[in-house]
């Protein structure tokens, strides 16, 4: 049986299932991170003393990672635009750069974690470090998931370009929406954890 409305828009919603599905998934992600941000606020307003993020975390490293992730968001949207221009080589170039930048982000984050753990700064050390590791760890897992999905679309998944272009473009749009959301979360995580 063929799944309906993968490419065509449903007449009642004006949306295809891919777009509606990814937005509903992102809505659930908003609630997941929202719950943790809520926990952060609860812990902070109940704390006797709350450290300044910049005293514990490295602002230049955090700012560098912010630039890396924003750049990866730009290359992700450019790879989608390349497909719209019927340019598969451009798509592969930009998606490859996106994956490279994602791995750079993860490497920098791993270096930060290593430094903290090396100094004995683990989640059990303080409430601040506990929520820092929880929020950035969950975000890091989302980056890792994005790398796996984008890697698939760069490799075997790109074969669909020759069989069903429209469906493939929809898939890349959905992957892009997820990636921009992960970038958006970091845009809030950086000031909340590193600067305030």
């Amino acid at each position, binding site marked *: 049986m063929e799944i309906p409305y993968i490419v065509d828009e449903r007449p009642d919603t004006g949306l295809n299932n891919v777009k509606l599905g990814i937005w509903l998934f992102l809505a659930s992600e908003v*609630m997941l991170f929202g719950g943790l*941000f809520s926990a952060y606020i609860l812990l902070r307003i109940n704390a006797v003393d709350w450290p300044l993020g910049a005293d514990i975390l490295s602002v230049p490293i955090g700012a560098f990672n912010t*630039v890396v992730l*924003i750049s990866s968001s*730009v290359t*992700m949207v450019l790879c989608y635009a390349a497909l719209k221009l019927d340019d598969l080589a451009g798509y592969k170039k930009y998606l490859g750069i996106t994956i490279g930048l994602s791995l750079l982000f993860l490497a920098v984050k791993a270096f930060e974690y290593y430094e903290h753990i090396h100094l004995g700064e683990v989640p059990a050390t303080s409430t601040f470090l506990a929520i820092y590791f929880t929020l950035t760890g969950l975000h890091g897992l989302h980056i890792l998931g994005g790398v796996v999905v984008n890697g698939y679309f760069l490799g075997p998944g790109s074969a669909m370009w020759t069989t069903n272009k429209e469906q493939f473009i929809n898939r890349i749009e959905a992957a892009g929406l997820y990636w*921009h959301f992960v970038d958006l979360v970091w845009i*809030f995580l950086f*000031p*909340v954890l590193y600067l305030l």
Partner: protein
Amino acid sequence: MSEDVRDHIKLYYKVAAALLVLTVVTVGVSYINFAVPLAIVAALVIAATKGSLVASYFMHLIEERKGIYAALLLTAFFFLVLIFIPILGHTNTFGEYKTLPNANAPVAAEVEH
């Protein structure tokens, strides 16, 4: 069609430049000695501006269908509920000095109610 896409690409570069400038502003503002509430407001306003740029242009929300707006409106409502729950539970204790129950904790001043 392809002309539209090329126009969009130019826009993406402008948004990218704005995001990078705002990142520098975020870090710059953090070095100014604002009071904590003002620093929080400044950082969150800049972050919200950056977030809305990403959502509007990279995620194409600015030209999205009504069905998506409806789903996101509902999400935004429940997100705000989540965020305000811890704050609403403490409106009666704002400004009070708290101490940990240990010998080294400073003694809290008596507050007349």
